[in-house]
């Protein structure tokens, strides 16, 4: 049901009056531990649309779509594993989608978006804190949050422990936004 709702939201996006749309200069990276040492990767293809008027947060909305097939750990062998059924299973689930249902401002320029993340067929509530600055025609949102990969069965079966690959995945984003045409 929620699936369908998010899909509808996504399909309806062009009609949705978002104020801001991400540009290609945006960055979205992930970090996890690999046998106790940090290792990083990058989502090379994602789109963010943001409706944000600090004076009217009731109408605020954040929608993020990440093409998991463009996830990149910098090594073809590691990427093959990443796309495999036990991990992102990109054959079945090409994209992850986050849709906020509320955005609050807890300090000037500091926001928290809560909403549903649809990842690998599992939909769960996540909280995404971000800072937002805008000057003239451009805006930037920046943030960091942690997702437990096992909540979404990313790294399932024998990988579902922190034995080799850590459970907590730290996500960092710097999104450059321009007003939508």
């Amino acid at each position: 049901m929620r699936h369908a709702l998010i899909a509808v939201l996504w399909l309806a996006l062009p009609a949705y009056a978002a104020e801001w749309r991400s540009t290609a200069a945006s960055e979205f990276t992930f970090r996890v531990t690999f046998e106790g040492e940090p290792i990083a990767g990058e989502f090379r293809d994602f789109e963010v649309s943001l409706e944000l008027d600090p004076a009217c947060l009731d109408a605020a909305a954040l929608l993020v779509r990440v093409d998991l097939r463009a996830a990149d750990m910098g090594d073809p062998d590691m990427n093959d594993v990443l796309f495999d059924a036990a991990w992102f299973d990109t054959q079945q689930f090409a994209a992850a989608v986050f849709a906020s249902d509320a955005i609050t401002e807890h300090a000037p320029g500091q926001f928290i978006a809560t909403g549903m993340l649809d990842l690998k067929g599992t939909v769960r509530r996540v909280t995404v804190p971000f800072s937002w600055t805008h000057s003239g025609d451009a805006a930037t949102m920046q943030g960091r949050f942690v997702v437990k990969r096992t909540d979404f069965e990313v790294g399932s079966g024998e990988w579902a422990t922190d034995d080799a690959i850590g459970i907590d995945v730290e996500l960092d984003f710097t999104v450059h936004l321009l007003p939508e045409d």
Partner: protein
Amino acid sequence: MRMLRNTERAWGAVAKAFHWTVAALMLGQLVLGTIAEEARVSPLKLDLFVWHKSIGVSILLLVILRVAWRLRNPPPAAPDGIAAWETLLAKVSHGLLYLLMIVVPLTGWWISDTSRIPFRLYWMLPVPDLMAPNRDLSEFAADVHGVLTTLLLAIVIVHILAACRHHFLLRNDILSRMLPTRQNPRN
């Protein structure tokens, strides 16, 4: 009391300990490395590689200490009746063994250092990161590591066969004087 240092006739306890410890670790590394390499991608495979790399670094450090010890402790003389060419051949192959015992772990480090896979010694100690990740270089290093390991294995087999020849055919004490159980003879 057991002698720590070598004498003119016998290996000391330290040299024997180095010999057998490194031999056992190298055998373990061969098995561990082969299983890790062949295993399908799994948490176990990643764990095995951490063991393989950690033990490899340990062997490298042990062999450096071993060489330092050896430089200060000349090996016992060959028994009478060993031909000069045999002594020379033994020297060359022992030299190659020492060289490969240092170079093979170094090439393993080279693979690890140029790959994107992070590594912490025994899950505890970070190791210096010397080179930028480079897939081509890492694969080349892996080939070199494989070839040199095969060469090392071949020379170890020759080493074992030569020791057996001395023991069973020539009936001298070259093999038995390296055994850990044997009491050092008085000299």
